[in-house]
């Protein structure tokens, strides 16, 4: 009960930000909240946000855990491109769907392993270590697809991008499931606490007996895994692997989602739910801009302004000031009532 209260309090700023944005969008576009059932699945702008936000949401899950270890994974966008390319080329060269998925996820895990080993074993700064794959990854993806968009027609693979389950588009089902699974994994075991300990003070954690290298590698592997699933979804969505554009800059959106979710880039305390809300906030802004009908020249400015606003609201300084004011208000009120 009190746990739930604590959890709610942690997520409150994100919920408020999301509500404000959704409110603004519905003013600009009145039909925003309408939902219908079409071809046996829910259909509407809200569903679009959940659906389009899937890749960033998935990346944000892995990114949250990596950032909690005081790391960062710049390679996720490139890993998405690699995995999309691998999936497309596997399915078009005749592999079965399970084999394709297994292979693709395996490649994602390998990418994560590479990053993890660079960071945990060779002790390279995460930003540099993952930059290597970020630079090389898109090239690898282009090698797999020969620079062209590799189109496929396998209904099974396409289902992952645009099919639906329980009336919800598959990407939504996948990211929500992944979010719940990972959240359970880190919070029902001691992983969450150990990851936070490593993120706050790696040396002290090692001295306390925490196996830091294993945890660090696991974090990057999880990130690679999430990126591979995001890559499959992105490719399945357009029925083709676009090595040039798949996941382009999405690593930055994922990092932003984590930051909006309130997890510090300095590592430590993290919340996967908050990062997922962050991802939805970003997608709501994107979809809202598209629905509002502003000329495209304004897209980036509007997005930046809203994000700056959210981040300023969350800044510790401002929060400290607000808390101070609310406390001093609370302190003066009883005095006033006594005077009466």
């Amino acid at each position, binding site marked *: 009960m009190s746990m739930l209260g604590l959890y709610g309090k942690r997520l409150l700023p994100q919920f408020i930000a999301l509500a404000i944005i959704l409110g603004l969008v519905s003013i600009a576009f009145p039909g925003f909240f309408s939902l219908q059932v079409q071809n046996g699945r829910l259909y509407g702008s809200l569903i679009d946000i959940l659906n389009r936000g899937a890749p960033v949401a998935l990346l944000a899950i892995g990114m949250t855990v990596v950032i909690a270890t005081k790391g960062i994974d710049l390679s996720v966008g490139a890993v998405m491109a690699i995995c999309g390319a691998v999936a497309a080329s596997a399915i078009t060269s005749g592999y079965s769907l399970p084999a394709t998925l297994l292979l693709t996820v395996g490649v994602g895990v390998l990418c994560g392993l590479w990053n993890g080993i660079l960071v945990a074993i060779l002790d390279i700064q995460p930003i540099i270590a993952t930059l290597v794959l970020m630079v090389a990854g898109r090239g690898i993806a282009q090698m797999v697809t020969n620079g062209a968009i590799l189109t496929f027609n396998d209904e099974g693979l396409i289902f992952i991008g645009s099919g639906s389950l329980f009336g919800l588009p598959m990407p939504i089902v996948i990211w929500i499931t992944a979010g719940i699974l990972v959240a359970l994994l880190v919070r029902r*075991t*001691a992983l969450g*606490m150990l990851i936070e300990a490593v993120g706050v*003070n790696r040396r002290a954690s*090692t*001295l306390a007996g925490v196996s830091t290298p294993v945890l660090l590698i696991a974090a990057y592997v999880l990130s690679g895994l999430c990126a591979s699933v995001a890559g499959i979804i992105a490719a399945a969505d357009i029925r083709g692997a676009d090595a040039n554009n798949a996941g382009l800059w999405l690593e930055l959106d994922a990092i932003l989602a984590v930051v909006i979710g309130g997890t510090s880039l300095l590592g430590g305390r993290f919340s996967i739910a908050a990062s997922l809300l962050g991802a939805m906030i970003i997608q709501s802004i994107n979809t809202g801009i598209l629905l509002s009908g502003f000329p495209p020249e304004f897209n980036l400015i509007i997005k930046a302004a809203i994000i700056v606003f959210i981040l300023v609201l969350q800044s510790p300084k401002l929060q400290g000031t607000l808390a101070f004011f609310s406390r001093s208000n609370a302190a003066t009120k009883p005095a006033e009532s006594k005077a009466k």
Partner: protein
Amino acid sequence: MQADRDTVLSANRIDKVFPGAKALSQVDFSLRRGEVHALLGENGAGKSTLVKCLTGAYHRDGGTILLDGAEIDPRDTLDAQRLGIGTVYQEVNLLPNLSVAENLFLGRQPRRFGLIDTGAVNRKARALLAEYELDIDVTAGLDSFSVAIQQVIAIARAVDVSGKVLILDEPTASLDAHEVAMLFRVVRRLKARGLGIIFITHFLEQVYEITDRVTILRNGQLVGTRDTASLERRELIAMMLGRELAAEVHDESGAAKVADGPVRFQFRGFGRKGRIDPFDLDVKAGEVIGIAGLLGSGRTETAEVMFGARRADSGTATIDGKAADLSSPRAAIRQKFGFCPEDRKTDGIIGDLSVRENIALALQARRGWARPIPRAEQDRLAAEYIKALDIRTTDAEKPIRLLSGGNQQKAILARWLATNPEFLILDEPTRGIDVGAHAEIIRLIETLCEKGMSLIVISSEIEELVVYSHRVIVLRDHQHVAELTGAEITTDSIVNTIAGPAKTPAERSAAAGEIA
């Protein structure tokens, strides 16, 4: 309030309020020309806050500050410096990658044709340091010198820039005896030049050695200002704590105690190249082994190889006659070892995590991630140790970084006690913590060994080692040079062994400079 003619700095009725707490309340303080004035108090008493108000780092909420009789209101530390108040902190706040000369004259270098005149900078730097009897290569990088020399350089800069008041904030915390002596020579010289010096420290011996007056704060309030010479040690402690401290009147007769029983932990030829020469050590159950030596003599290094923080590259370790793997902290923890490191901030606490999580961490790490300690069990553990060790925290869920040094240290101890260790290594367990916590930790060491735990305690406070050690190992130049037992354990014999066979002062200071 009338200041006497000698007063260079006086602060009257200073108030400082932080959200939720009153840090200073109507505090008076005055500093004379040519005096060293100690500012004392337990952690959280308001020493730093007062200093920060004087240097403009904080803006005070009430009261006046007079410098040479004129009211001042420093906007920031730079402003205070210009007015004549310089500060040197425990962690030297200079730029380690610049040369000594550049550090001394940064931002005010002599120029020629608009360019920095490096020759003149170096000349002036040499002249300035000569006043401090420091003959070093001023073109070498600051980080190539020991912390003590860096302190002196920082002092030289502060005095040169400011020149009226010098504030030394725990300058001796990371210095060994030789270096402290060197620093004190500098302080006496400056005192003779008429500077007012405020000296903040935890070491009471140093207070008596160097200061003329003492001002004691407690809970943000002034307790009193006294002449050091006429203030008895017990009275001073009573003023600081508001109570008598049992440990300070501890008699030294306990020193002759011996632990009997079988040897449990045996190290043979244990060492690591370049860190600590191979040593032999036998430890019995319920025995406290004290480790003494100067900073850099291999004290911490001994602890590190025993705990696997750095893997030993020679020798063997056996426990109860069986070979034991101590190749990593995890391996050592499996052998029921525990290690409270010297540097609490970087090696001990997990700052953002709660007191509860910090206490549960080592136990959880040993159980593995897949077997989480249930929350109720964690709460019980935390509550138990908070009570047992008297860890002062409002709440087990408070981030540990918000606790005072002594309470952090106790929480780290709790972390290891929760794992039921049989061999506990404490590296400087009482450094930088207030007197009250100090005494409690010493009592705890005694209780633990009575319960049969084997302890290795490294400390630079020799009186302390004398109180609780069954044996004292003395280290010099990365070697275990002597083992003192029973009646041999006295302050004098330890000091003599550390000092070793007669060396020329030059050799000694060279060695001290090199290892620090």
